[in-house]
């Protein structure tokens, strides 16, 4: 196999980025895409792209350090976005600096829907909160503020 795969994880809101991690260059602060990406050993099962809207939440597994807990609990509370991107490049490329030639294999953008696990490991679900339950259409209902006490027959 002559391919290497690196995943990056970014937590951001608007133009502010809170976390930049990569999981390939061990214990290395990687200069990549004009930014610095810290090493963090996160894993994920698979990024799925589907013609159907349901069932493609991405779950990443991370060590349950206090940095992780605070980063993702704050991301959830503040509706920050989390982007996981999977890159592919030659395994013969330098293993100490970022690849100059690579392809983006997959990418997933989502909000922190849920997080949980143990004291040593956390599973973080990334997706959107377009819930399969509950009523959102039409978006508004008649309220006392809108129509007062309405006509009654």
């Amino acid at each position: 196999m002559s391919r290497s795969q690196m995943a990056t994880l970014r937590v951001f809101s608007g133009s502010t980025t809170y976390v930049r991690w990569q999981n390939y260059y061990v214990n290395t602060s990687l200069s990549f895409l004009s930014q610095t990406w810290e090493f963090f050993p996160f894993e994920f099962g698979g990024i799925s792209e589907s013609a159907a809207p349901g069932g493609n939440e991405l779950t990443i597994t991370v060590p349950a350090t206090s940095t992780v807990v605070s980063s993702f609990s704050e991301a959830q509370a503040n509706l920050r976005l989390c982007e996981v991107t999977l890159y592919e490049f030659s395994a013969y490329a330098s293993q100490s600096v970022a690849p100059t030639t690579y392809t983006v294999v997959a990418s997933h953008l989502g909000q922190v829907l849920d997080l949980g696990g143990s004291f040593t490991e956390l599973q973080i679900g990334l997706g959107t909160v377009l819930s399969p339950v509950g009523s959102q259409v039409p978006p508004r209902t008649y309220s006392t503020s809108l129509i007062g006490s309405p006509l009654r027959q």
Partner: protein
Amino acid sequence: MTIQVSDPLQLLPYQSGAVTSPGKESAANASADLTGPQQIAKIGGSVPIVFCRRRNNNGGVFVSPKATEARYENDVTIVTVSETYDSSGTVLAQSVRAQEHVDIKLCLVISEGDMSPIKLNDMFFGECKRGTYAQTYDRRAGTWVPGNFIDDYLTSTITGGGGAAALPVNRVSGESYYIKDVGKVYHIFTSSVQGYVGFVTTDHVVHNFPEYCGTSGSYDNMTVVSFEHRIFNLDNWNLQIHAFVREGMKVTRLIDNTLGPSDNFVDLAKYLIDKSSAVPSDLIDTTLLTSAANFCEANSFFYNGKLEESANLSDWMQAHAHFFLLRFSKVNGKFAFRPTLPVNANHTIKTTAIAYEYGFTESDLLPDGFEIQYIPLSERNAVIMQMMWREQPSGDIGFARTTNVKFSGTSSDGPFEQHDLSLFCTNENHAVKVGTYMLSRRRNIMHNLRITVRPGSHSSILSVGDIVRVRLRRETAVDQVEHHDFLYEIDRIEKTSTGPITYDLTHFPIDSQGRSVVALDVAAATGPGIVLDAGRQNFDCDENTATTDLPDIGRGPFDGTGGTPNTPTPSDVDQDLTPEGGLDFGDGGSSPTGSINNPADPYDQEPTPTIQGYTNTPVAGDTLTFTPGCANPLIKWYLIDINTGVKTQVTSGVAQPYIVTTAAQQAGVRVYAEGCCPDPGAPGGYAVCVESDIVDVFDEIIDCPGGGDAGGQGGSTKVINVGSAFPGSFTFTYTAYTIQDRFVISGAASHDTGFVSGINVPVTVQKTSASSLITVTVYAPTSGTAWEYSVGCAS
């Protein structure tokens, strides 16, 4: 370890929209009643969305808005019935009658959002174009005050007496009196011929107009219409108001980025996603949405309907998308719609040869990387698609129609599969193309594939909706090589961080020229194109024929003055709460202070077996026993020196008791036992040893100076802390009175007074060690004796 579970391949046809059989059949949504009573808005009900745009003589929505406020008032007019003239044309006599009328005013919510003015001749009272209307946005339409003012025109109600004799003598023209006993209303008027003041009567009618007429509201971000009408036929006052809306709620259209009415389903979906506030804008793929909107526009798949039934947004979009030949999907985590058919650059359906993006062969497949699932027969047998849509004449009431879609050569008798597009589809070709799409997929798509392949150049170039070729060599006999060779559409991709990629594929049937047969079927499908007559009879009740816009007349909320209702203010209905801990209390709060001090759990340890055979404190001669919980235990007895803590075994044996000795009592020791149960397999024959509780062979430990005791016959044993000074001595002072008693000191000092008498007799006792505890044992065997002693500290 990460466990990955994929949806079964059998579900793919249903998830991808290949199978769309409805779960139930019902009357078309467009089949609304026209002459029923006016509907009333209720708190908690959905605010409707009217979404339409009449273009090219098609589209628009006929809506039946709900009323929120009303005003009812009646009055009487004197009508000339007949006149008598002389030869010069002068009126000699008149015959008149009184005619009651009722003015009805309603406030009606048309839609959420702003919209262009509705035309006057597009408003209906029942089936007829009657009444006066005003339309406004974001405030209450009309300036009238809601309320029931029926019979307020009466000057007074008279009870007692009868007929005209009961009328007041000072009555004047224009007054009306209700004489209750005869049930008639007397209307006073001045005759225009004779000039005298007379009256005409009418029966008093008890009207049942609503008494609760509404208190108004803010009508925030709503389009509202005011209806006013005077009716004389009081039997038919409660009729539904209808409106034919040509241009519905304004949204920002994706195609031209302009605020205005839209009939594009994708515009509506995006509006609903935005309104849900559940999906940030970064998670909406606007590029793909715009492409999907262009697909709808280019192929004339328009939405002209209203949303009023409460539904889940995700369900709603999935249920409606396939009626526009779109798929509601996620791409890179972002929401998007994608056409279900191949499209050209101009967004029309592509009917030329399809070029596939990538070809997979055996060399790409991983072991066990191939799975095929054929569409079940129940989803492939021939049916007739009964497509329901709405014929929408201009300025008139739309009506539901059906168009049956089937392939030639199949039965005309069914089975039928009903699909209701009448709520939003006003274009027969649209309905027919959707029916054709479902029918063609049912006929031509045979199977689904799931392949798991090694990574390659396809990893980064393929996405959902792309067409790929799968050509796999198959040897079914010697020298007989076949190939599984078809085109497929990618329905799902799963990429793992370990490399393998799984593609879920749906068969993409092509003809000999490489063209999509489903696309060809759909592109060629058109409806019969017959315009049916609405079937309206006796069309003579319309009064409004002008095509003018409804005037923008409205007002803000009422304030309770001048007989107006009290419209709730925001402070009446909104409650802002200040969160405990402040607005930035978002990190889960503070940690509790102090250490954890839980009560002891009485059950978390096995109970300690106790020594038996004494009362209060063991004394010389008591026989102590210990049972560790088994038969024939080996019991070992130990004494503990209270000064040194040294344990000394004093006796042992099977079920061995211990008899407290005088020496032990005088020494002030502690005693405990160790019991070992028989175990023939253990070295020595015993195992599982347990220790007893520790029992003091003295009453208590008290401190100097002054530490001491007093009593009578019997005696006592006390341990006294005299301090650690050594060498040193302390003063022991005893009183035995006349009957002799004996005081024995042991432990850190040693002294025996023998049986003595006397009062406050001091004795200096030398310590024998640096230990601090001494034991004082008093022997007082004689009846009637009394004694006491005290001990000073060592120095």
